[in-house]
């Protein structure tokens, strides 16, 4: 315990910066997932699953804010939620284009962005986990071990959806 406190207060350690960065990128990922969900309401599985797994990022934001307190950070535990005023408008817009095939190209682009964002978040967790190990901060390491697998699942989801839909979107116009 004493050693951990000692390491935490080491002059020049960048844990705070890493936590802040991850807190920001998880927040962005939650928002991106909710955006994809609203944007593709006519693709029902995208709509619901993106919402379900946005919740993981929201929970990660809360955990990061909690552990950030140990490092003297004041991070907002509340991630962006789905009650944005624009959501119903976006959902309505996508319902109007449901009869057209072309908008599905946007789906590929949006999934590509989710995959890229989630990959970034995943690397951020990697950095934080390594740091936690070096600093022997079991609490922080525990958070990394619980959250990071869900980031990987978000990434695999985006990859799988691209794989599943690409052929129909690209070949059958």
């Amino acid at each position, binding site marked *: 315990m004493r050693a951990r406190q000692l390491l935490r207060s080491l002059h020049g350690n960048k844990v705070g910066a890493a936590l802040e960065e991850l807190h920001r990128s998880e927040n962005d990922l939650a928002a991106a997932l909710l955006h994809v969900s609203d944007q593709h309401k*006519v693709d*029902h*599985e995208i709509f619901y699953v993106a919402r379900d*797994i946005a919740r993981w990022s929201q929970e990660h934001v809360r955990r990061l804010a909690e552990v950030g307190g140990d490092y003297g950070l004041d991070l907002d535990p509340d991630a962006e939620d789905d009650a944005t005023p624009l959501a119903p408008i976006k959902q309505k817009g996508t319902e109007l284009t449901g*009869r057209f095939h072309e908008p*599905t190209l946007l789906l590929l682009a949006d999934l590509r962005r989710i995959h890229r964002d989630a990959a970034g978040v995943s690397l951020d967790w990697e950095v934080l986990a390594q740091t936690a190990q070096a600093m022997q901060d079991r609490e922080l390491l525990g958070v990394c071990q619980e959250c990071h697998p869900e980031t990987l699942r978000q990434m695999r989801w985006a990859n*799988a959806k691209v794989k599943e839909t690409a052929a*129909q979107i690209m070949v*059958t116009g």
Partner: protein
Amino acid sequence: MEAVAGRTRELVAERGPSSVGFYTTGQLFLEEYYTLGLIAHGGIGTNHVDGNTRLCTATAAAALKESFGCDGQPGSYTDIDHADTICLYGHNMAETQTVLWTRILDRLAGPNPPQLVCVDPRLTPVAEAARVHLAPRPGTNVMLMNALLREILDHGWVDRDYLEAHTVGFAELSKMLDGYTVERAAEVCGVPPSDLREAARIIGAAERLLSTVLQGFYQSHQATAAAVQVNNVHIVRGMLGKAGCGILQMNGQPTAQNTRECGADGDLPAFRNWSNDAHIADLARVWNIDPMDIPHYTSPTHAMQIMRYVEDGSIRFLYVTATNPAVSMPELRRMREILSQDRLFLVVQDIFLSETAQLADVVLPAATWGEKTGTFTNVDRTVHLSEKAVEPPGEARADLEILLDYARRLDLRDKDGAPLVKWRTAEEAFDGWRECTRGRPCDYTGLSYDKLRGGSGIQWPCNDEHPDGAEHIYVAGDFWSHPDHCESYGRDMVTGAPVEPSEYRSLNPDGKAILKAAEYLPPHEMPSEEFPFQLITGRTLYHFHTRTKTGRAPQLQAAAPEVWVEASAADAEEQGWTEGDLLRVTTPRGEVSARLRVSGIRQGVLFLPFHYGYWDTDAGHRPDGSDGRAANELTLTDWDPASKQPIFKTAAAAAHRIGAAEGPSLAPTTTGSRPVTTEVPATSGGPTALAEERFENTGAAR
């Protein structure tokens, strides 16, 4: 037929094979599914083939794949005769599998009756016979199962040796269950904690445990995850592969098992793995085509996605056999819009002019069982031969004959230029199928029409090793889940993403049973101020599917003549409703009006039977300007990400009285819709339903 084949050829030439889709059923014969799968996957080269089994049995298959790497039923009907404990999860067997239920009634009335545990939000005949009846809030099955599993683990009611020798994933499961206390589940599911503990104790004390699962799990939120936890109970207790110890992940239709086996439902024939190139090469060898001719860049497209592709216009030819999506699919207003598009060429092959057939460009009249020959396999792998007894009426032809005609007109060829479909009769098709199954889990190589004649059915695998079939599979922990052999590497049960082959190989290199843990997620549509009830849909004893046949049987029609809605006595009192009141039930998708039956259903939940469509109304295929009567006017387009089975049992709804009672509702009194008052006349068949059967003494043993 020329229009059907001609439009197929045109579209394939103009827009590619992925502009063509097939939507079949769980009610044809094995030979017909296999031929359809061959034509679609191997001949035309489309990935868009599925059955209405997606609505009834997809989760059964998905749950078996998650736990055992492969479809195939671990249990046998004979387990009912041996079990000391039978758990029915979301399975109103008394109405869905009546003959099987009489087998349980026999046990209950005999010496050493088994104890029953029932999970169902309605007071069904099963619930009334159960020692413990858990009636959870719709959409909370995973929470319930996790709490039961945690109790079982906490009390050490597990088979440590079995776990050690035959399973992977126990550490992850134990970790997941940490947070799932009985108290938490009691709160979330709205079930007394003492009942949860008692159910866990009964399951934990069982020495021969049989579990059956059906639509209460399969058509609800987190379908696969919940069904998999039932498998987990059996795996941790080591209760598989011996008499009385079985799982029956049930099917909803007579030949649903064949749809799954034969590759007509989003799987490839004989449980081949679409993401294993060796399996594709092997299938191409059987069909004598190039492996590239079999689309396998992703899993075969599921029905809900096929409809989405029809909606966005990328599928323009849909060939529907023996099913009625215009009534059975969720969100019917959307479904009617999809199916009535001008740009869609819709073919419907059926025995009656169903609602869907009324929307078709071409209707092909088909024969039904008794008018054609073929085999079918039931849920416990028993293969039967069903022989033709009478000629089909009018221009109707056997589905197989129509499909063979279609293949001939498309002039489908193998890689040597010979006809792709090499059979002309059902028996030849069966022989072709037999070869296709060689070495696969559902091995039919020991079966033939001759062998199936005369007896009462044979359980696969039937081959050199098991010449008379096999009552149980997974005997002594011998699974089909080896990475080279398995049908599926599984999916993430929340996201639906397929597990990558390399990942599976490192998880389960030796082909053991997989304990797959699942976190509980809240349902996607929760009750609100505007929509305060939870709506579930389901079957009644007297009707099947969309009443295409049962609505034409006078006694059945009289027993359940019109749609009704069920609510609890507490809700009726609170709302000031009485038995027989006309209610309008509303969701954001539509309205249905129905007479109220005050039944033993859980408070806060409404139930609508899903059978009633419009073929026997003036409008024919849709509501006639007023409220609908099809439950699916109200249901949500949402499905389980792993099994892709639509969720019919977790919608938020409102209900208001729009007319006073003119007597009790006409819902049956003999079933789950039994009224809470005794003032409703009992349902009875009447004189025309009476049958007399005499057994002549033939000198045989029985």
